[in-house]
């Protein structure tokens, strides 16, 4: 019964004023939960990459929710101030500018905020982009923080993948029972 009442109340409020921020915030909230969950469930990817990607996806949506809300509300308040002489006009302008605010957030504000905020946050948490992600970065991008010396010390990715045979492979004696000394 309580659930039905809650639905009725929500319906009434949405019917009177369905702000454009509601749906985008709801989508961002569910994306913020589901996308990292799907990434963590992927069995083909290595755990470090999964952790990094999931956290990055989660952070993007965490940034998106207040950005949508802030841009929408700010634009709405601006409309109210600009058209305060006519109430009907102000009401319409509020809805329209809210929608324009949400579109601006999706197109400009969120990508800008993410590019500024995500990297420092990931560094603070102590997560760095795995090798696969580094390869996705633009080819001609200069990396001033990385000195030539450290770059030379790095081993190529394919080198790490070579599987060396273990010494136990070459022993002819049985590998069970009590053994004393040596191999």
């Amino acid at each position, binding site marked *: 019964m309580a659930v039905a009442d809650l*639905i009725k109340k929500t319906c009434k409020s949405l019917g009177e004023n369905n702000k454009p921020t509601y749906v985008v915030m709801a989508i961002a909230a*569910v994306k913020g939960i589901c996308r990292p969950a799907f990434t963590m469930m992927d069995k083909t990817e290595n755990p470090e990459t999964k952790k990094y990607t999931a956290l990055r996806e989660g952070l993007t949506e965490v940034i998106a929710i207040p950005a949508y809300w802030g841009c929408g509300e700010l634009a709405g308040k601006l409309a109210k101030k600009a058209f305060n002489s006519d109430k009907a006009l102000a009401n319409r302008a509020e809805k329209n500018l809210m929608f324009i605010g949400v579109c601006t957030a999706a197109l400009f504000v969120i990508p800008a905020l993410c590019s500024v905020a995500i990297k420092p946050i990931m560094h603070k948490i102590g997560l760095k982009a795995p090798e696969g992600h580094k390869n996705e970065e633009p080819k001609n991008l200069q990396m001033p923080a990385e000195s030539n010396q450290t770059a030379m010390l790095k081993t190529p990715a394919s080198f790490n993948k070579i599987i060396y045979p273990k010494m136990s492979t070459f022993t002819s004696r049985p590998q069970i029972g009590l053994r004393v000394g040596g191999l």
Partner: protein
Amino acid sequence: MIGAVKSFITSSQLANIAQNTTQSVAAETTLKSIGRPGFILIDKDIDSDTKQYAAAKEFLYQATCLAVYMALIVPVFKKGGFQVAKKYIFKNTEGFEHFKDVKEYMYYRKLADNPSVNNRMKTLEKERLTDKTKIRDKYNTTLQQELEKKDPDKFAYVKGAVELSNIIGSVLGLAILAPQVSHAFIHPALKLLGLEKKKDKTEQTDKIDTKA
């Protein structure tokens, strides 16, 4: 210039889009599908191959989201949500009893939004193209009386139920379903466009079983 901006900001058509979940989400996704690839292509710090690849990938992702949303979510949740609310939640009360389906309600709402009573009456007297009956005949006496008032009842519960259903559909469609569909569709599409090369031979040799 200022007059044009003012009339755009106070436009009733834009207000209708802003208040309608499906239309606002569709408009936003369309903007994203044009804007985001556009910004990638403008970026001067990335080489042209990477730019083309990233822009095409972004466009295909947004286009898939839009297609899935429009084809599956809008019809299912818009119509389904109205029927579920009418039969099970509101049980033919709070205005649901006056409307057979969501299309009928939306048409009534559009008429009720018209501020001029004269214009509403003129529309009611018009004949429908499909069966030559008057639009007035579609509505019962309660609805006709409402439309004659200066401020007719817009049945907020009905509108709210449709919007709530649309929000649920949008969330399910754009946050869960569309990414899965686009994941399956984008890579073959990029390969078809020649933007995604086949894996290098070096990568393939890495996978050779060294134990053999």
